């Protein structure tokens, strides 16, 4: 039987102390995860958490009600149905110029920068990098053609493209590059191409990290191609503006590749 203090199991005490801030969304991510794990199995804490959450929702519901724009409902229907795998007409999904810029970055970085990230046998690795660049460029174009719906689309004047060059950490091998597309009116996306990784470390997990150490997951690379890598692309419904790094972790959670996201020298906007 669990120890009790003031009628509450001692296991629950650190959780109960945090339920108010959980309801008010002011817990840090680690504490939130700790509390949510406990709530999975503890009905008593779950009940109190639900009561506090319903009270917090009242605070939110008390604000003056404003009329959303008329087309927001249709956009939301489209977004949910798209997420559910049901094709729906969507506006501004992907832009050829932005993707072309991403391709230019990828090919450029892999052709020039890739070799810089390698640490041994420069000539041999450069030749390998060039082969990988050609291989990845081919994959990239296939990927682009599969995700671009309209060849006449354009990026908007506020759209931005950032890039990152991924270098190996801790004496490991491999490398890669990433493009991050950020738009105030369209879905943001991230495209990451990696290579030169060991099959022993698979699956590899790719994430973006912000300055506070919070991650957003881009995807996993379970099977590596002959170049020891492959491309990962993901579209996001929230802004990727605050993310500063791309990190690739191996199956044990160790970071094997990392790179800083910086504005791309390639212009992304057209008038």
């Amino acid at each position, binding site marked *: 039987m669990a120890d009790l203090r003031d009628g509450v199991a001692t296991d629950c005490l650190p959780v109960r102390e945090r339920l108010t801030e959980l309801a008010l969304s002011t817990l840090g991510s680690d504490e939130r995860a700790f509390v949510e794990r406990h709530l999975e199995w503890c009905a008593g804490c779950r009940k109190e958490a639900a009561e506090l959450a319903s009270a917090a929702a*009242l605070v939110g519901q008390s*604000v003056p009600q404003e009329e959303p724009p008329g087309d927001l409902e249709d*956009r939301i229907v489209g977004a949910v149905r798209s*997420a559910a*795998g049901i094709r729906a007409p969507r506006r501004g999904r992907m832009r050829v110029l932005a993707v072309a810029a991403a391709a230019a970055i990828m090919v450029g970085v892999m052709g020039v920068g890739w070799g810089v990230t390698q640490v041994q046998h420069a000539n041999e690795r450069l030749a390998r990098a060039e082969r990988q660049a050609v291989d990845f460029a081919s994959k990239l174009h296939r990927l682009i053609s599969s995700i671009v719906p309209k060849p006449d689309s354009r990026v908007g004047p506020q759209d931005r493209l950032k890039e990152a060059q991924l270098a190996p950490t801790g004496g490991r091998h491999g490398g890669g590059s990433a493009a991050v597309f950020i738009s105030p009116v369209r879905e943001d996306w991230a495209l990451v191409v990696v290579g030169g990784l060991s099959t022993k470390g698979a699956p590899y997990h790719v994430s973006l990290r912000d300055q*506070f150490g919070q991650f957003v997951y881009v995807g996993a690379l379970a099977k590596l191609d002959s170049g020891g890598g492959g491309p990962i692309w993901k579209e996001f*419904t929230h802004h990727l503006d605050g993310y500063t790094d791309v990190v690739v972790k191996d199956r044990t959670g160790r970071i094997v590749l990392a790179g800083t996201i910086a504005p791309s020298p390639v212009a992304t906007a057209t008038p």
Partner: protein
Amino acid sequence: MLSNDGPLSAREEQTLVQQLLAGDEDAVRTIYGRFGRPVYSLGLRLLGSAEAAEELTQDVFVTAWRKAARFDATRGRLSTWLMAIAHNLAVDRLRRDNGVARPSLVFMSEVPERATESGTEPVLERDVARRAMQSLSDGERKLLVQAYFRGLTAREIAESDGLPLGTVKTRLRTALIKLRRANLGKEP
């Protein structure tokens, strides 16, 4: 399809969320019709621009779809669930933009009313919420506004107001419990 009038039962809310999970258009429109406006209004209040509020509202519905399998109507109402998702996403965004886009402190009683164009605003839930907020003291309301609308942690409030951390935590909890009690019996 459910109408937009009257409260939903727990069973109806569970069914609606199951339909949302399947991407059912009618379900999305029904949920939006009932909760789109409060979610959007919260986004506007927290994030300060119509563009950000629209983006937040869309994110809330996509996140709700993603988490739909975990929704349990016996544990809480759909409105609570959606508002919690909205608030979490907004606070996360505020933290990311820390120091850039934090909204200014606004007391509920000082928020000017704006007439809606349609004149058919579903005011029931908001009236209940406002009445519940009025049951709080000025001090309790201020604390909740600091935490809920500005995303300040209990520690940050304690430091800014010169209060012991334990006092702030206790007062925040007490305020939420008072709100909950004020609302008891008013839920369907």
